[in-house]
């Protein structure tokens, strides 16, 4: 598991490490958001990032997807250093699926085109094949009849499910989910979590920032608690939720319970 595969060109498939983050720092101007993050994600693991807004969860996910350039540290993706200056970040992003809090579907494209755009235009998949696969995914997640609709016609829950399918369509080796239910009405949260649950059961490697503590407890292999840009505590959900060691974790979970979110 912890094989020394630090060399940039190693590319070890044997080791089950999907992602290894080492000493990652990120600032926006004066705002020091990530202050030395170390985190490893093995294949088929589901890691839940929890923590208050502004703790750095989203920034960490965006740094992993190379949407932000880190100031210091290294990110290793399946044995390759993806923070090396010679890395083409576009090629890296084609192996990661990112889902955003606000869906970000393309409003001018129908659902089907939203899903097939990247496979066709980025990966060079023939349009017919991409459409066939997109339809299969839509049907699998109960959206088969929405393929020809524009996103605006869909409910928030349906839009977010399409966004997840869109990310899946590029066959990512890692899914990054950034508070995918936070923008949804409460009654629509379930249908989106069902999809995420199904992905977890299918063995998808996932890193998700979430405020849904019950869900994190249910599906997480490991829960990671962030505060002020550092990982305060991490462990299996049973340990982190039921017997948190750090005072800050206890305080945070206390506030969550008080707010009735757990």
């Amino acid at each position, binding site marked *: 598991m912890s094989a020394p595969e630090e060399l940039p060109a190693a590319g070890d498939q044997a080791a089950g490490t999907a992602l290894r983050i080492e000493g990652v720092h990120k600032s926006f101007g004066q705002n020091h958001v990530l202050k030395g993050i170390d985190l490893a994600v093995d294949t088929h693991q589901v890691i839940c990032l929890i923590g208050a807004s502004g703790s750095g969860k989203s920034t960490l996910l965006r740094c992993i997807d190379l949407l932000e350039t880190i100031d210091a540290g290294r990110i290793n993706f399946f044995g390759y250093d993806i923070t090396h200056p010679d890395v083409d970040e*576009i090629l890296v992003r084609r192996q990661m699926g990112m889902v*955003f809090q606000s869906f*970000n579907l393309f409003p*001018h494209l129908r659902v089907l085109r939203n899903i097939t*755009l990247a496979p066709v235009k980025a*990966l060079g998949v023939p349009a017919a094949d991409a459409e066939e696969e997109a339809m299969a995914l839509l049907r699998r997640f109960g959206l088969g009849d929405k393929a020809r609709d524009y996103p605006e016609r869909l409910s928030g829950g349906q839009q977010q499910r399409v966004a997840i399918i*869109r990310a899946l369509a*590029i066959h990512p080796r890692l899914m990054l989910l950034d508070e995918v239910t936070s923008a949804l009405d409460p009654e629509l949260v379930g249908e989106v979590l069902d999809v995420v649950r199904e992905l977890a059961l299918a063995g998808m490697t996932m890193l998700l920032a979430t405020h849904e503590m019950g869900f994190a407890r249910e599906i997480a292999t490991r829960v990671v608690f962030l505060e002020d840009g550092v990982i305060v505590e991490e462990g299996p959900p049973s340990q982190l939720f039921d017997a948190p060691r750090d005072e800050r974790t206890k305080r945070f979970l206390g506030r969550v319970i008080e707010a009735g979110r757990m």
Partner: protein
Amino acid sequence: MPAERGSTTGVTSTPIAGSAVSFSGTGVAASRGDPDPTGTLGADPFRRRKKRLLRTARGAMVASTLSTLVVIGGIVVAFLLAPGSRQVRSVYFDVHDMWQAFLGDPHAGFYSVGAGLVINIEMFMIGEVLILVLALVIALIRQSKSPLLFPLRGLAIVYVDFFRGVPLILVILAIGFGLPALYLPVVSSQSAFVYGVLALVLSYSAYVSEVYRAGFNSVPHSQIASARSLGLRPRTAMRHVVLPQAVRTIIPPLLNTFVSLQKDTALVAVLGAVIEANRAAEIYSSTVFNYSGYTVAAILFLLLTIPLARFTDHLIARDRSRRLAGVT
């Protein structure tokens, strides 16, 4: 401290001793400068006496028709009663001259204003397409982040600043008389029509490139982030995600610019050699010494621009009602 604050708010300056109704009826209305605070009906704080005519939809229609008639009637009467009215009418609005100018008569030495307008339309149509393309290129260059394009980016900024700053008529003169004077091959041997269109394209592309840029900037950054996260190259994201959304938002301002392009084609008249509507009217007036030809040209330009202006309004209204319906 509290006493000071109270004296500035106006509401508390009126005695609060009264009931809630008198509080809102006199205190608030009076402090906001209601012209008739006593117009409240009885104790109901939400009613005031409206003008009787404006109470029904039909009444409002009658009122607007009446006021329109009064205004237009006033203008017509003022025009007819003006001391020089007769003179102006015979020089600018002579029906016979207008008809003559419209038709043109090559034997009498003047051209048809109506046929001239066709040339205006040609300049507009050709210019429009070229402007859309050139402006897009300029906007894309300005938008690009590539370090290789840095010199071009600087050039694009200078270009836009220059052509937005120089009056169109000077651009037309400079191109139309300057380029032929250079005696360059090809460049100096074009027709005045080509120079006119070229000047319009150069000038308007500067404006339209800014319209494009505003459109690009109107696409939320989250859209670009999600295109990037899917592994699309910047060029692909621009073409399939940003551009289609930007074009939608810029169609009304774009059409607005083209309304003014339609009539600015008349400025090409300064080159003399392009017999478009305005130039034809000019020739007519200097041949017959009657300005009715200009009136014809004005009417024809109105007939040309008003439909496009209305169509633009229609699109804006549709876009607005769509957005109000919660569709983003």
